[in-house]
């Protein structure tokens, strides 16, 4: 049997979920034995190739056109897509800006904030991604598995990865279900 291929990427998050993934410590070796870990933000290869992977894992919400690309690419190239952590599942902390709107958030961050220099401007380089409301992953693409947590607990991550690596769908309930 060939090992299932796993890939991950991050979007509008703090990378804390990936830190929590590394926190599974020596169990990472066990997962590496069971699965073929492909492109991730912490490996050399940054995005899964067109041949696709069995499991694609995405951290972070979708807050601009660049994230949208990442989300659609990962969806297209994964058999199972996992929304990893509260930002991917709900929108999370970045989504708080939806309460005031993107424009007001940008104005505050780039212009009004006390530490900014005078005449600061909101960046408008055409190469920059276009910003949008922060959305949960499932609002943009279909999601097969939600793993909430801010970040998800390493034990939960280990459970999820092990189940996926061994070809089972993890059951997100009881001790494995935490939103905080």
């Amino acid at each position, binding site marked *: 049997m060939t090992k299932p291929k796993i890939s991950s990427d991050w979007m509008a998050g703090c990378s804390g979920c990936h830190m929590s993934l590394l926190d599974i410590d020596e169990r990472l070796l066990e997962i590496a034995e069971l699965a073929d870990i492909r492109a991730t933000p912490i490996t050399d290869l940054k995005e899964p190739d067109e041949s696709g992977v069995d499991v694609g894992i995405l951290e972070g919400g979708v807050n601009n056109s660049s994230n949208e690309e990442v989300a659609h690419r990962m969806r297209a190239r994964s058999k199972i897509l996992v929304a990893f952590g509260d930002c991917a599942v709900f929108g999370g902390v970045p989504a708080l800006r939806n*309460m005031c709107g993107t424009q007001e958030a940008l104005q505050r961050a780039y212009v009004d904030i006390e530490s900014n220099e005078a005449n600061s401007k909101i960046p408008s380089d055409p190469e920059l991604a276009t910003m949008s409301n922060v959305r949960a992953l*499932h609002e943009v693409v279909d999601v097969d*598995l939600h*793993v*909430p947590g801010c970040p998800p607990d390493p034990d939960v991550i280990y459970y999820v990865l092990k189940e996926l690596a061994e070809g089972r769908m993890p059951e997100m309930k009881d001790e494995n279900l935490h*939103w905080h």
Partner: protein
Amino acid sequence: MINLTINGKQIEVEEGTTVLNAARQNDIKIPTLCDHPNLTPYGGCRLCVVEVKGMRVPIASCTLPASNGMVIETETDSLKKSRSTILSLLFSERNHFCPFCQVSGGDCELQNSAYDEHMTHWPMQPQWTNFPVDTSHTRFILDNNRCILCRRCIRACAEMSGNFTLGVEERGSATIVVADSNVPLGESTCVSCGSCVQVCPTGALIDRSSAYLGHDKQMTVTRSVCRGCSLGCGIMVHTRDNRIVKITGDYENRNAGTLCETGRYKTLDEKRVRLTTPMKRVAGQLTATTWEDALTTLAQNLTPNKNKVAALASTRLTVESMAAFKSLFADGLGNDVVTSIEEGRPTALQAKYAEANGEAIEGKLDTLRTSDCVLLIGADLSETHEVASFYIKRNMPKGTRLIVVDPSENGMDDLANLNLKPKAGTDEAVFAALEAAIIKEGLARTEAKSSKTALKNALKICELAEEDVIDVAHMLAEAVAPVIVYGKGISAFGNDAVMDAMVRVAKLTGASDSERRGLLSVKGEANSLAAAQLKMDVPFDVKNRKVAYLAVGDDYISKRLLKSLEDVPYLVVQASYESELTDRADLVLPVNIWAEEAGHALNTEGRVQFAEAALTAPEGVRSNLGLLNEVAKLLNVKLNDDWRSALTARTSVVEIEM
């Protein structure tokens, strides 16, 4: 009894039980958010929907009375789907992002409900509307973004504290919880009892003092009794790392979870400096010493010599400690001035009356819950015994009438149907006028006679208007269950006649007849009644005494009391905190605070309750009872440890329930 079937199980419940409660009584769990066992069902969240055979759609079980032959299902696939949708709608209405909420991770009923339904995400995303956050209150914060509009807080405000401060504004999903007519909570009519915070199922109402200090599962919860006043409300003391994090009302106790600001929050404000070593005065200076030396010094100063010592104990001490104190200083060492910090002011009159007549004259606090007319005299309950004021206030919308008799301003004046402002110190005349008015108007329920001039004479003394007194006479005598609540303000200390006059009015109006005892006194601090029963109710007269021994525990003492101690040659203070009193002492003995020792309390209605110790005392500090026992042993005094008999040796003003 009613028979019904829930999930195939035959059950029997009393008539009038809701389907939700029927299920609860039979360990069938139906999820709910707006329902609270101590509040009137509301049917707001719809999470408790069930299927009833023969009914077209699912129905909220919290407001559905069980009826004979009902067949109920609570766990069908269709219901589970409904519940998920209901939860999803609740989450979509506001900002329910859990990671930065204080109650997330165990204390949030909304989150727990989602976990129970195995909800991993929100099928419907939030609508991103900002709702107001009210941080104007000193005790708690109201964040409408976390609110699910269950209205538990509003019901608690009305049904528990009778304060009716909280309500809603706007309609539909724009509805927000507001205080009064939408004024900041901190400037509203809120009395800071915190019942709203205790019942809130989400993080919409959170305490400033306990927020982010841990979840309930990380705390030790100890069942105790509030020492704030004599009502003896049941409290749950939540501690973590030997510190009190918060205090909540005990739903199982007779106060049914209701507390006032004093009970819930004031203990957490404690800023006094703790005493941890014994100290004695050496060459004019208070100097730290060992317990051995302190006790030897104490023994030398107390050596048996009749009436050498004037002794005073706080009524916040446990009944056990107070009984030991009395036994040591009065029976053991032969002193006649052994009293409490209240010196009998709130209890001596009625204790004397009960003893002279050989019977209990007062009723239980429960009579307030069903009374349709309350006469309040000599007490500002909103200041001193606030939960009792809640018992009255919450009945007022049902038509309960309140008459406040107080020469000065009273916190309940605004609520009263009638305010009587007699001349200060004329309460006997007030009752005499009432008595005469009742007889004159032909309202007396028992046979009575009065002279033609009685009313006029009494009115002249108390300076009240005749029509007011006649109005009160009608209100009281025509009520089904009138109650007279009195406090230590009634007339001058030691005036026995006022008791006779009051009891006569109570009998004439039916407040007290052979079946009812609608006479209540609120007395003073926690163990006020115990002090009366132990006859520790005499003035603290230190004249010609060589030693004054004050076991004040964690109590405060008045300037008046402090002043009276100026000429005492030797002052011993058994206390928990530094104070002007300990500064003046010749010997200071550090002891536990209330939460550090287990023991009993006797509340104003004669209920004996046990309070567990919630905290471990700092090293070097003795328990109040332990210390008294040690002193007794040093002085070869045998203490009577049968406090139960000691409490009932004297006829009590109210029946004592052991």
